[in-house]
């Protein structure tokens, strides 16, 4: 078994198993936690509207914070949208998802994917530099932040290198790319990347609580 066979076989298989196990474990654990009893009279019993509103409103900061966090916002959106495009609209990725779930959709030309991928990598590096250069952010950052950045950026870089055939033979680069993806899968449920699943759950829960109390969202 060579490196590519290992990456396509056991590495992907076990990383997927760990990711699914971890996601199921953490989601179930959180969703089944006992809620704090609230004895107050609810302002609104149906909190669906509040949940949805909070999910949407938190996509953009309050006006007074926009100026100070504009760069974060732009870079954050660039790399999130970039990641979405690269992960979900590159044909080999769609085929991987199709093989797992049976779902597929149209792909974008490779040139578009590579362009978006390069911009995404640049945005991720800019955010890393900002994290390191800004004293407050540096103090707030821990291993989880840096490792989560690494496991997000590594598949992008290795994917671009594989596409451009730079640094090694294609099959080696492809194997390394798949191994970095496997690392991402393994880390996703256990670090800050878990927000990919929890972002809407936590925002919805907060929105529901606010709505119940009649607080402004």
């Amino acid at each position, binding site marked *: 078994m060579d490196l590519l066979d290992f990456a396509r076989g056991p590495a992907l298989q076990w990383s997927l*198993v760990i990711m699914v*196990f971890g996601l199921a*474990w953490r989601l*179930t*654990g959180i969703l089944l936690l006992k809620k704090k009893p609230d004895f107050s009279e609810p302002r609104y019993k149906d909190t669906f509207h509040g949940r949805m509103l909070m999910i949407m409103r938190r996509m953009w900061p309050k006006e007074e914070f926009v100026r100070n966090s504009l760069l974060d916002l732009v870079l954050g959106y660039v790399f999130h949208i970039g990641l979405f495009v690269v992960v979900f609209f590159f*044909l*080999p990725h769609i*085929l*991987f998802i199709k093989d797992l779930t049976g779902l597929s959709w149209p*792909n974008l030309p490779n040139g578009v994917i590579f362009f978006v991928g390069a911009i995404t990598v640049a945005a991720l590096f800019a955010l890393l530099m900002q994290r390191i250069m800004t004293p407050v952010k540096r103090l707030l950052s821990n291993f989880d932040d840096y490792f989560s950045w690494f496991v997000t950026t590594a598949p992008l870089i290795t994917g671009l290198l594989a596409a451009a055939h730079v640094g090694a033979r294609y099959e080696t680069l492809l194997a390394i790319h798949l191994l970095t993806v496997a690392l991402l899968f393994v880390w996703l449920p256990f670090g800050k990347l878990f927000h990919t699943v929890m972002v809407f759950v936590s925002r919805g829960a907060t929105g529901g609580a606010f709505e119940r109390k009649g607080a402004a969202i």
Partner: protein
Amino acid sequence: MTGSLRTVGDALARRGVSRRAFMKFCGALASSMALPPGVVPAMAEALAKAQRPSVIWLSFQECTGCTESITRADSPTLEDLIFNLVSLDYHHTLQAVSGFAAEEAREHAMKAHHGKYLLLVDGSLPPKETEYYSTIAGISNYQMLEEAAKGAAAIIAVGSCAAFGGLPVASPNPTRAVSVRDVIKDKPVINVPGCPPIPVVMTGVLAHYLTFGKLPDLDHLGRPKVFYGETIHDRCYRRPFYEQGKFAKTFDDEGARQGWCLYELGCKGPITYNACATVKWNFHTSFPIESGHGCLGCSEPGFWDRGSFYKPLSTGELSKATTIAGAAAVGVAVGAAAAMMSRSRQEKVTGGK
């Protein structure tokens, strides 16, 4: 077929081959090996003076596809090869004699040209522990290879079976077959894989040896870089469609008719190093992708065990979905247990309020 070591030039002259035809032949050879045009006169001179080496071709666990392929060589043709360029002294399929006479021819060639003959092997072979799974004239493949290798100037493993084990090695490998390189450690072995290899690649490697008196530059798998230096994907005429994101979804859809990329249909061109896309097959007519089928990756080790030929390269070789479903079920159970423990602790602290 036993022949003396005449020069190639003598053999050509005897057969009435003109200088012009010989230069054309050298030009074609140089071109197939990606050598510059300036090298052709030197090549012609070297080839004309080259001694026709004795060639012993051993066939072990194989299907004769490699021999079938070389009979379709066009530059040089098989006739050119065995009448002008080399003295083919032993080959099961091509030789006229059989039985004891055939084995005598091999033994005679091995003695007469000791240290000078070229040994070509197609097919894998069982190792010493299981050597009697495959025998010829009562001699195991293992023993025959070991004996023949001792006096060989160089060994060429022809086809994926000889180079990497090929189909006989595929799981469950009932004969525990191994490649030539797994057995021969003290001699240069050049791998010319493919199932079968491209004819001109086989003849080109021989011609290179005759011209330059040495083996060509090899890659990390022992393959001549000149023929195995680039992937099928990199030289594929359908590559622009890959870049444009245009893929055939089935073998008979509009994309297939338009000649779009076959990646989605399982083409292994991106990880396969071979000259099919440039040299092509059947007198340079076409190659599998041009005929509408994805590359199987037959010149790569273990190609037979790399899952379905029709599964895209980017998909994993994953076991059944039940494993993933099982992981989800276990995760839910562990999460529920953790939540219950947390609730229980919470109730202890709050007294159930």
